[in-house]
């Protein structure tokens, strides 16, 4: 008997019992849909985390001062005041460094007319927008002249714009007061939204780092140096050369500990991505269990079906079906059930994925290999759980099968 004939006989048998066939399939449908949806959620969550990490800046290396011990109490990283803008200028000359920007952070009140708002002031270099991949929406950014003259100019984030200029008038050219000093607004930043850690990145005012040091902190040191490597692969070498350079500049010799700390976001991204992969596998594992349960459902129904159709099997044998033909027919029924169930599950999972994507605004995606794998797996489930009932059917004695009541 040809494969086509076997499938035709199997399909006819399944169509004769439509309701039962559909219910049997349901287990597989739910299993496969669950696999598809969980994988899509995993991928979506991972992509989402990746995107928010990337939004902090590509190929970014962050240098912070180390901790100091003050009367026995150790401050955390950033507690020391050891990084200077000159460190930054020296780093800028290293190989594979695309750009550097110092960062002087001060939290203070900013006033514009009758509105005021507490926000984080960032003293930065002109390269900052490049390092952070942060475009402007209006005006211009801080330039080298502003830095050289410690100009009183400011670039506002969108949250600050909304708080200080609620009427919707353009902030460009307006004056904002920072710690008593008037700053002219020269530009506004594009909205970035929340960072990966949930902070509002738009709640900031950027000014030249020289202005921040002179007028806000009164210090000669900076809080952070931000370095952008030329490529993702250059991150590790740059990190090493930066460490070596700063050790030399700060005259640190082993076993003395470094008075600074160099980190890159790639490692954070990797951790997040690994966490995502683990979650994805965990979810897929749970979904696979439900597929397994679906398979057991198929076996259960097929066994009932073999008993119920004993006379039919006897008849088929008497009109010339070989034992192997009967086995193939029942196996084909199980495989057809599980595969069609798998295909329906893919469609249902796809629909569920789209629905969740619309709700969460995550960039959901179903990797094609998972679609293929889940359909293939459901076919294997059919073979595995269909074989035992099929063998029971094929082993029947035609005379006893015909007499079966």
């Amino acid at each position, binding site marked *: *008997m040809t494969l086509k004939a076997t499938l035709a006989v199997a399909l006819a048998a399944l169509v004769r019992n439509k309701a039962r066939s559909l219910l049997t399939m349901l287990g597989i449908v739910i299993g496969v849909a669950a696999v598809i949806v969980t994988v899509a959620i995993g991928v979506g969550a991972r992509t989402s985390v990746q995107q928010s990490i990337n939004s902090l800046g590509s190929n970014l290396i962050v240098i912070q001062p180390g901790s100091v011990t003050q009367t026995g109490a150790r401050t955390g990283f950033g507690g020391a005041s050891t990084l200077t803008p000159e460190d930054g200028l020296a780093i800028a000359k290293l190989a594979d460094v695309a750009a550097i920007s110092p960062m002087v952070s001060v939290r203070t009140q900013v006033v514009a007319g009758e509105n005021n708002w507490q926000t984080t002031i960032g003293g930065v270099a002109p390269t900052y927008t490049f390092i952070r991949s942060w475009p402007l929406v209006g005006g211009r950014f801080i330039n080298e002249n502003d830095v050289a003259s410690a100009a009183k100019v400011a670039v506002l984030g969108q949250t600050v714009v909304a708080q200080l200029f609620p009427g919707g008038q353009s902030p460009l050219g307006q004056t904002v007061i920072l710690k008593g000093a008037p700053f002219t607004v020269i530009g506004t930043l594009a909205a970035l939204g929340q960072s990966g850690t949930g902070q509002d990145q738009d709640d900031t005012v950027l000014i030249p780092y020289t202005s921040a040091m002179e007028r806000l902190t009164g210090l000669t040191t900076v809080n952070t140096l931000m370095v952008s490597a030329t490529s993702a692969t250059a991150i590790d070498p740059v990190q090493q050369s930066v460490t070596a350079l700063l050790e030399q500049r700060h005259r640190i010799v082993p076993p003395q500990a470094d008075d600074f700390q160099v980190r890159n976001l790639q490692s954070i991204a990797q951790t997040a991505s690994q966490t995502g992969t683990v979650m994805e596998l965990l979810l897929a594992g749970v979904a696979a269990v439900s597929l397994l349960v679906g398979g057991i459902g198929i076996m259960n129904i097929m066994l009932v079906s073999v008993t119920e159709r004993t006379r039919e099997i006897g008849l088929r044998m008497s*009109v*010339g079906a*070989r*034992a192997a033909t009967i086995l193939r027919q029942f196996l084909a029924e199980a495989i057809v059930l599980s595969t069609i169930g798998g295909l329906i599950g893919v469609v249902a999972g796809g629909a569920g994925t789209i629905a969740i994507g619309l709700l969460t605004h995550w960039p959901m995606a179903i990797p094609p290999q998972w679609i293929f794998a889940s359909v293939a797996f459901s076919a294997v489930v059919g073979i595995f759980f269909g074989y035992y009932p099929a063998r029971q059917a094929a082993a029947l004695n035609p005379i006893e099968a015909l007499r079966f009541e």
Partner: protein
Amino acid sequence: MARVVEVAGLQKTYALGDESVKALRGVDLSLEAGEFVAVMGPSGSGKSTFMHIAGLLDTPTAGTYRFEDCEVSTLSPDARADIRGRRLGFVFQAYNLLPRTSAVENVELPMVYAGVPEIDRRRIALEKLETIGIPQLANHHPNQMSGGQQQRVAIARALVNDPGLILADEPTGALDTQSSQDIMRLFTRLNAEEGITIMIVTHESEVAAYARRIVTFRDGLITSDTLNQRRAA
């Protein structure tokens, strides 16, 4: 005339718990092509066992069975399945039609297993329904037909591969008198007009009366083998 069935010294012993039951104790019988034989006997006489062996559904414990000049008692299960599908036709007391399947599809079933091409199956099945006289029921399902009609479909199914022998096991056992007579007249006509060899197993003498030859079993042996002088019609 070609010899369809030739059995010699046929024995069948069943193990029933610790006891062994001798269902057949040495049966000799031959059947020529075109014969119409009724096998009679009370229950336990061995007539059903004989029919199962004759129909290649079972194998004898001892003795020989030549079907269409071929020794079949030692064939493999697959070879026996192939002969059942291609050279034998079965009619059962309970019709044994596939439920929720049209008459014509039921008739096609043996051809599916015999490997008849799909395009020929429908045509041949419709021809046989025509021969049986129920072409109008081709698309009816078993639950839309009377017992007599269902049995006619089953007979069409038995005829579909032009078998050398039709074996009918109590074909009228579930039918009323009128339907029984119709079915037996149909067998008579198929035998007389199409020359089909028929063996009917029954315990009713009214049914056996339609056959040309009556073989009676008792306690696993043939006790009489006579030509039927007063055939019913």
